[in-house]
């Protein structure tokens, strides 16, 4: 039983030691606000472990467990199996993990859960690198972004996590952005109501790792969508809905120009990144549209 020290609004403590302007904190507060207290959360070591707490103090008012880095999905499956064995059909089981714990080291256990149709909600907050250990590159780090292990810019593009998830043909998968919280919260509700595995991949701008003014987190999230760097869509019972298709993409510079992680790029590289982004966006939209044929 928790001994509540501060009656903060919602299920997350007011004083979380996330960085100023952290996208993940906003994501967690909204996720738990939608899921409610009848929820068990699984968190790997990483930035989201700030919510697990330290010592005998937790940042959350709900039941939770911090597992290993690569088994968040499997840990969620174990909780679900035990709830089922005890006749509990009402509690939501949510896995809350970053891109490293999901797209890299945790991909196998996530795939296992998706293939078995375990009823869990999986939220991947994607800050596009290993931020908790000091901004090392992950497979979700975008093309040309500088990290401490891709100092000259990452030479390869971002792994398409949601398409890998969708390849398992699960009932519900979606991408989301914190600049549109209404859209995100609706998606979390849908994920909660899904009878089977559901997954939401949400971009989580990171002022410390992306090197920008913490006040600009929402602006950057919006720019990612408007420049074609982040596409909002849902996959629901086999049908794709693109939530936001800008008539015309804004120049990539509107997005990368705000961030220190792209500061090293030459004019040539910027042009190349613009072309790559446009090409990738068009290809991806075409692919998504063709999935409904």
């Amino acid at each position: 039983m928790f001994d509540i020290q501060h009656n903060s609004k919602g299920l997350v403590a007011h004083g979380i030691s996330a960085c100023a302007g952290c996208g993940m904190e906003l994501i967690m507060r909204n996720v738990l606000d939608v899921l409610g207290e009848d929820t068990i959360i699984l968190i790997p070591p990483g930035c989201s472990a700030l919510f697990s707490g330290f010592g005998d103090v937790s940042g959350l008012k709900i039941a939770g467990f911090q597992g290993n880095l690569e088994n968040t999905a499997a840990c969620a499956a174990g909780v679900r199996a035990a709830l089922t064995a005890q006749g509990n059909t009402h509690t939501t089981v949510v896995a809350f993990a970053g891109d490293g714990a999901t797209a890299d080291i945790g991909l196998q256990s996530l795939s296992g859960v998706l293939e078995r149709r375990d009823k869990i909600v999986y939220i991947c907050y994607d800050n596009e690198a290993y931020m908790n250990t000091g901004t090392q590159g992950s497979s979700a780090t975008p093309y040309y972004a500088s990290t401490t292990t891709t100092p000259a810019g990452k030479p390869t593009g971002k792994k398409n996590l949601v398409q890998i998830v969708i390849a398992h043909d699960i009932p519900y998968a979606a991408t989301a952005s914190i600049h549109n919280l209404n859209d995100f919260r609706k998606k979390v509700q849908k994920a909660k109501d899904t009878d089977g595995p559901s997954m939401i991949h949400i971009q989580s701008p990171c002022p410390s790792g992306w090197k920008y003014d913490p006040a600009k987190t929402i602006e950057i999230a919006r720019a990612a969508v408007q420049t074609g760097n982040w596409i909002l869509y849902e996959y629901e019972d086999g049908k794709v809905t693109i939530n936001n298709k800008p008539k015309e993409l804004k120049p990539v510079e509107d997005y990368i120009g705000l961030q220190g992680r792209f500061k090293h790029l030459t004019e040539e590289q910027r042009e190349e990144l613009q072309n790559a982004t446009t090409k990738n966006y068009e290809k991806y939209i075409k692919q998504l549209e063709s999935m409904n044929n």
Partner: protein
Amino acid sequence: MAHKMLDGNEAAVEAMKLAKVQVISAYPITPQSSMSEKLSELVASGELKAEYIRVESEHSALSVATTAALTGVRAATATASNGLALMHEVLSMTSGNRLPIVMPVVNRGVAAPWTLWCEHGDAMAARDLGWMQFYCQNVQEVLDLTLLSYRVAEDERVLTPVMVCLDGFFLSHSMQKLDVPSQESADNFVGPYKRHNTYLDPKDPMFCCDLTGNGEFTEMRYQQKYAMDNALEVFEEIAGEFEERFGRKINIVEGYKTEDADVVLVALGSMCGTAKYVVDKMREEGKKVGLAEITVFRPFPVKQLKAVLTGKKVIGVFDRSAGLGSQGGPLWCETCALMIDENSDIRHYVGGLGGRDVTAANLEKIYNELLEIIEGKRTEHTEWIDLKENPLDIRKVAKNV
């Protein structure tokens, strides 16, 4: 009580069924695979009411079992060899969160070289991660020790997981006629699973396993050590109850004809059966030899083994794992530490690796060496007892070098 013909894997499954495990997560690996199969059959047929999670790796197998146990049910998995190695980091999660999972480990060497067959190197590599380890000598013991393990592990003085170690193929695939307790008597012995101290429950929420600073970490480790210290006494108590109910005695350490023995061999696992045969045979020849069979390796049974070995001038210790880089195998190191105040000559033997049979002839050779040492007729012993004459020539590259 009924009699059934079962192999070691079936015996372990029978015990899991009798204990009414509620969540099973299993991943097949030789020589454990038939356990994964049999458990899924029991669940599919409704004979065992449990959730069967067909996981994609051993890492996930133990992760699922661990959080299932944390959510308040009796959870099960089983593995062997490389599977146990893959579980390595999760083993500490299970024990550190004080989750009393009982896991059969079918002992098989860890690659490389690839082997499918028995040695204890897999379990020995995981011996210091806060799990108890019980080694079975025969198939009946697989059933008995597994059943007993639920009581020991789940006892609130212990709350520590158990590996029930059974020798790959020698036990896992050997049929034996077993006494199998009735479901009713097993229910009365094991009882329902009760959660303790840490659990996941939305109605009584707590967060488990967050980051712990150096102000508390040592004490939490000490709690595990304290539980290990309690475990032998609890084992003895529950083994007494087991004997009363089922009529079979399970010893932490058994001294077989050790009392008047001039030399004693310390061993664990299925080789003990062969060793007993050798002891009997040599006794007929007037050679006073004895065997210390260790069932409980973790926690190490200091008091019990010391009672058997005290006063013995020459002792042999048989490690079925190589202890690479160490002064000797784990069993030998433990025995030496145990006998630090005794004036004993403790000889280290390695053998039975990668499925090589521990033969009666080799055990006899060991006993004869030990007897010659005590009689002052030799000083050296054959440490790698079943090593071929040309070990360095094996797989020697003949060309293109």
